[in-house]
């Protein structure tokens, strides 16, 4: 029992928690931006796959790591705009379109992988982002080493949280985004473009989602596997509700999930002989469902979420 508690004091546990949380931070922020503008982007799971695949492919073909990040973001933005063509411009169902984008992006990524590497059994590995280990951090106990092990992409995730929070609450653009997810007619009446705002939010949000995928292949691991996304996109959709569409709470939710996941891995080695491992694997998801049930009862959905806006219609 004491051993189970001691885990929480280990720097390696917190390092793992942050590493697991990082792609979720990107994903939740992306989903949050889309949904704040009134568009549910269920393409997230597929955009994760596409970002992971294209970022890794760029680097394995000789590109710079940051070029891989940029390519992933661009691919994500393009998929977001594709989502927008159907849901914002044509006003089609956001659920159906999002799921289609997920299927399309996932299978295209796998197809692209097979085209690039027709006859390999193990995918080529790349040299991923290295831990930054800044000197000023090492003095802090537990947190210092835990953060020191993280790569530049993790710091980018933290930066994105701050930037998103700032833009949403402090700038005219953020004001317009929040308004367009609540009452697009109000935005239109003020002479702003509902379509432009929503397309922009989809492009930016989907680019962030793709960064979540790229984090897995360029930072957490060093290669691309089928099924490596493994539902992380869906977790982000749930975390968005948990976070009440606020960037700060999104960070908290992602870290909480990361901590649960890191904890269950360590519990498995402690008690794996007594309790089936599947129970531990379920743990983070069960806890997220529980957290969601508690948070979602008070959730204040953007009023225009999932409602297409067609000019001149009430």
């Amino acid at each position, binding site marked *: 029992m004491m051993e189970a508690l001691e885990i929480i004091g280990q720097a390696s546990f917190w390092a793992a928690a942050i590493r697991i949380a990082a792609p979720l931070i990107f994903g939740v922020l992306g989903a949050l931006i889309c949904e704040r503008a009134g568009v549910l982007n269920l393409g997230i799971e597929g955009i994760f796959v596409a970002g992971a695949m294209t970022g890794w492919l760029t680097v394995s073909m000789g590109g710079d790591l940051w070029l891989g990040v940029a390519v992933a973001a661009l691919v994500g933005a393009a998929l977001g705009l594709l989502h927008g063509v159907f849901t914002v411009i044509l006003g089609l169902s956001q659920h159906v379109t999002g799921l289609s984008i997920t299927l399309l992006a996932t299978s295209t990524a796998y197809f692209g992988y097979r085209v690039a590497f027709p006859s390999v059994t193990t995918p080529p590995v790349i040299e991923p982002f290295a831990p930054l280990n800044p000197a000023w951090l090492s003095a802090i106990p537990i947190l210092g080493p835990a953060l020191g092990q993280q790569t530049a992409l993790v710091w980018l995730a933290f930066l994105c949280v701050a930037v998103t929070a700032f833009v949403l609450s402090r700038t005219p653009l953020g004001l317009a985004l929040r*308004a367009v997810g609540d009452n697009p007619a109000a935005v239109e009446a003020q002479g702003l473009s509902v379509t432009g705002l929503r397309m922009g939010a989809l492009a930016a949000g989907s680019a962030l989602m793709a960064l979540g995928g790229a984090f897995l292949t360029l930072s957490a691991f060093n290669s691309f596997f089928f099924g490596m996304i493994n539902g992380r996109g869906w977790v982000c959709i749930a975390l968005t509700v948990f976070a009440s569409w606020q960037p700060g709470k999104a960070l908290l939710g992602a870290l909480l999930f990361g901590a649960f996941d890191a904890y269950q891995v360590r519990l498995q080695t402690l008690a794996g002989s007594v309790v089936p491992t599947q129970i531990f694997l379920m743990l983070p998801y069960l806890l997220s469902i529980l957290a969601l049930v508690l948070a979602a009862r008070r959730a204040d959905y953007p009023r225009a979420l999932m409602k297409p806006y067609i000019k*001149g219609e009430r």
Partner: protein
Amino acid sequence: MALAPPLLRLRGIGMRFGDLIANDGIDLDVAAGEIVALLGENGAGKTTLMNILFGHYVADAGEIAIADEAGRLAPLTQGSPQAALAAGIGMVHQHFALAHNLSGLENIMLGTVPLFGLRLPRREVRARLKQLIAETGLAVDLDTPVRALSVGERQRIEILKALSRRARVLVLDEPTAVLAPLDAEHLFGAIRTLAARGLAVIFISHKLSEVLALAHRIVVLRHGRKVADLPAEGADRETLARHMIGHALERPEPTAPRAGPPVLELQGVTCGTGRDRLRDATLTLRGGEIVGIAGVSGNGQRGLAGILSGLERRESGRVLICGEPAGATARQMVARGVGRLTEDRHHDGIAGDLTVAENLILERTRSPQVQRHGLLRRRAIRAEAEAAIRAFDVRCPGPDAPIRLLSGGNIQKLLLARALHGHPRLILANQPTRGLDIGATGEVHRRLQEAAAGGAGVLLISEDLDELLALAHRIAVLHAGHLTPAIETARLDVQTIGLAMAGHAAGAFAPIEAAAS
């Protein structure tokens, strides 16, 4: 006023939606400082015309010109709200264009500051608005999220929003439809102040009294055409009504009550919560009688109506329907013979996506007329709906159209058909004509009087004193949850009722209350 050069000029505006001609060659001039009322029935084309002006629609024909800085008329680009805003046209829609998750201040800043700026100039905008509020008297809390504000406050934010964009022409679409009478008075005061400062105001309405009270000039539309353009001075209700509906105004003739056995007895009933709590109410309503309940909304009406519609549980007291204890659920109340017209017909009255026919039978889905062995009798329902549509003159594409497509007046007529089905013994009519035009209002009044003549008891809850005085045989007043005794209408006048609505029991209300207590 008419001699002043126009600030805004509309010429030959024409617009059609499919077969419907919404606007047909309409001309309109508005001068600075002028309050022009655009009067017409629902569907006369008022809102369409203003949506064209504001760029929501592009007209099929016609031109719009607005004076520039030097006073010369310059054409306005159509179909562009941006161009309309830039030209100084501000519009307050009937359904407010506000984001509920933002504060009033944020809503006003939306679109007025450059989109890609790095900061929101909260302090500057707030200072400017404080000054505007001081000058116009449009008091409002700028920092509360709009969702927590009252309808009146939201409307003031909309007006401030238009003014802060330096509007020279302000269009108000049915601004009083959602307001309590006192709020409407405040609004009128603000509009007069603004007009005196040089703002041109176009005021859309179908209420004759407020148009006569506020406007300098009255333009009447009927079936998409301009049928009259006359100064408000010297205009009277009858003339305006004739222009508006094409024939003389029919006032409901007071009917004589037929005092039958009591259909509703309230004995010391307390229910409801908050401002709308009903406290210790006692009332007897007999068959054949119309009893009016006067009072400003939010003084216990919801509690009273809730008890009779089966939506509210009583805490104490007794409710008897035709001498028997009332049920506690909506289904039981319907079974007892209570016909109900709810206050918010869109919210409580209908299921918008269901068809006209389905909404009509919604209260009695278990009746053998409607179902057999648990399956809906489609043909019978359709036939019944067609009969109701004919009998109540419901203008709709047919029984299979989704009811949300109907106008408010037609929805109310259909709900009337539903409430009156099977000759209910008690009819609850809660604000039955709120938001309806003259035609539909007349139809509702006639039907309620017919029902009373047929032996039903009608409880008419209304804020409209003209309506109460014309229809009700006795009137009681609700104030702060307390219900006065019901007094014969002949012994009452507007002043007495108005005082009682404000909590001062005087005149006919005073001695009886003293005797009762």
